[in-house]
């Protein structure tokens, strides 16, 4: 988690340490009947998309844990700042949220990251809550969407269930974000799993990782597809979906595929809109509580 960045870690958490020391709040919160669920998303400044994906996922998770008080946080400080400056809406980052939960004397905190992979954002969440790991009687952290082997199958089945009728001349291409982080391996792993489940006309590509758009095109050309359906493989269909996937300019996946002669359709719908995906986050959270020692 620290990855050789102890100075950055210390600096980042210095304020929190200072608050803890100065306020005299250095004790452990022991009241485990007072529970908080902290739902963490990357965030999006696209209001309608946020409502459909993030707000709804938060509602479902919160309702699954009625004995927990709901807290929410975004990991993207840029998005937090946009809401504050543009709409006068205050969102907390993870450090602020966990500090507030601690100050309010919750004895148990369940942190639910609504992320796809165990990548940079997940590492940053862990880093942010680290100073508080001994401040709660129970601090439980749930896992992102693609964490265990069964997750891949469950996500694949959920996504396939949501697809329209696909004929043999149509390929479905999911566009994930991708990352230089080693957790990028989740994307080619997903491609492997979905093919082995028998969905040979479903492909995975990423904007900033592997498989690349070129990898996808190479695979598409091996078969005689006439039509491509593009779908974002992201919790929220935000900027990447609107621009990189479905934009009207030459380097969008839509235009590049159309230029190759394919008929291209697309969905601007995040995975967070799907009930099965939301339920998987709930499942992970429940497992985390069950397995907590």
């Amino acid at each position: 988690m620290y990855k050789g960045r102890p100075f950055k870690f210390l600096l980042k958490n210095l304020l929190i340490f200072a608050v803890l020391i100065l306020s005299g709040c250095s004790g452990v919160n022991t009241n485990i009947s007072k529970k908080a669920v902290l739902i963490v998303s990357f965030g999006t400044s696209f209001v309608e998309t946020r409502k459909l994906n993030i707000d709804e996922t938060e509602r479902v998770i919160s309702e699954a844990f009625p004995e927990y008080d709901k807290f929410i946080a975004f990991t993207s400080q840029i998005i937090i700042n946009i809401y504050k400056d543009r709409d006068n809406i205050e969102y907390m980052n993870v450090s602020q949220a966990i500090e507030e939960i601690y100050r309010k004397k919750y004895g148990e905190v369940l942190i639910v990251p609504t992320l796809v992979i165990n990548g940079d954002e997940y590492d940053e969440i862990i880093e942010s809550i680290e100073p508080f790991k001994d401040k709660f009687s129970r601090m439980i952290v749930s896992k992102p969407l693609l964490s265990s082997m069964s997750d891949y199958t469950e996500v694949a089945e959920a996504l396939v269930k949501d697809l329209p009728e696909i004929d043999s001349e149509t390929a479905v291409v999911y566009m994930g974000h991708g990352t230089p982080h080693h957790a990028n391996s989740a994307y080619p792993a997903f491609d492997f799993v979905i093919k082995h489940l028998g969905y040979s006309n479903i492909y995975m590509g990423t904007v900033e990782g592997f498989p690349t758009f070129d990898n996808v095109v190479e695979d598409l050309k091996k078969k005689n597809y006439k039509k491509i359906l593009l779908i974002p493989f992201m919790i929220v269909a935000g900027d990447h979906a609107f621009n990189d996937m479905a934009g009207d300019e030459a380097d969008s996946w839509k235009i590049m595929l159309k230029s190759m002669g394919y008929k291209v359709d697309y969905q601007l719908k995040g995975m967070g809109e799907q009930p099965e995906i939301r339920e998987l986050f709930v499942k992970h959270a429940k497992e985390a509580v069950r397995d907590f020692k």
Partner: protein
Amino acid sequence: MLKKIPLGILFIFLILLLSMVPVKVGGTGKSGDILSGKSFVDRSGNLIAVNPGFNSIISLSAVHTENLYFIGASKNITGVDRGSIFPFEVNKKQKYDISKPYDVEEIIRINPDYVLIEPSMIPRFNKPLSRLETAGISVVNLMSESLEDFDYYIRKLGILTSCNTESSLSQFKRDIGLLEENFRKHSDRKSVFVETSERGYYTLSNNSLLYRIFTLSGVEIINPQKNLLQKDQEYVKAGFNFIKDNNRNIDYYFTVTGPGFLGASRNSVSQNSRYNSIDAVKNGNFMELSSVFFNYTFRIIDGVKEINRAVYGSEYSYEGDKKLTRELFARTVYNYLNLETFTVTDTGYYDFKKYNHLYGSFQDVYYLDKDFNDIETVVMHGFLKPFKEGETEFFNRKSSITVPDLEQFFYLYKDFNSDEILNLFKQLNLEGQDVFSVSDLLKILNFLQGESV
């Protein structure tokens, strides 16, 4: 003899005094900062006495880089900052990031004659810039302070590089003059609101370059100038209530995005129901403008044209019965469809392979060409394919537009399949043709827009 000595000294003194009188070069009256054809005072107040002969320059400002190319001084550039991505050719230059100590040391090792910066860099990069100066590198701080000051700033670049800037500046002034005259004729002047940041809904103040560019394009600006906290502020907070209160007066709504600007993107606007209360946005009178047009570069002209075209429509004269070549196709489609000019602001754009076309990379379309924007925009929409020989791209300006080219265009523009295209050609009596004229294209475009043939 003795009497002649004081006279002689006086005479010499007068000659010295006269030689220090600044050469008037026109502009703002800041000609005093240019002391001679070989020296000037930079924005830090340093006297820059330029070495005779060839001077190597590392430019740490994308604005300076672009201007150096425009005045023909690209040969002087031995390195640039990572933000310098235009024109395309600059991507072959070595790039430096002075926030990284090893890049600073590398610049010291290269030992250029000058390192060019702009005033905004000083607070952020004080330490590395001091390191360069301590190492004996001449750091020159330049930037235009106003549109009137622009020729003066360009002349300083010319002095540094021994490039004659007079023809570029004369052309720039002529172009500005022509646009101003042309746009003055709009009797029904439209009013616009310009969102420069969606955080707090900031807009431009009367002091800004952006304001000058907008007024040159023949529009009236709606802004709460009285909200200025400081006299020389460039941007002023409007707040969404101001926009709503002036809703009926706003004919066109612009946002500015890109480096230095935080206007809402088109997608962000579509996602924010607040904007539904702005009639101009609701009616489609909305444009997202790229900030590349609003720096002190020669592309200010493109910015003025872009704004005017958006608000009043294109005034391009279509070239009637001329044979439809690829370049005429690009100009016609760009103007007829009033396409938003494509630009690149992402500094990482050239780090990744592009499948269709790499912006600005055509060997036969030069960034100084008058139709550079037309061609690049049409190709970047996928409406025309580039020709490739290995990694090299060509546009082939004079080649005729073919039936496959038109099929590509109709497919990308309207999702027409081959049968629909064939029907279209039949309806317009173009079936069987393999050579087309501009009029044929206009006939097709009129038909697609629902106008009479």
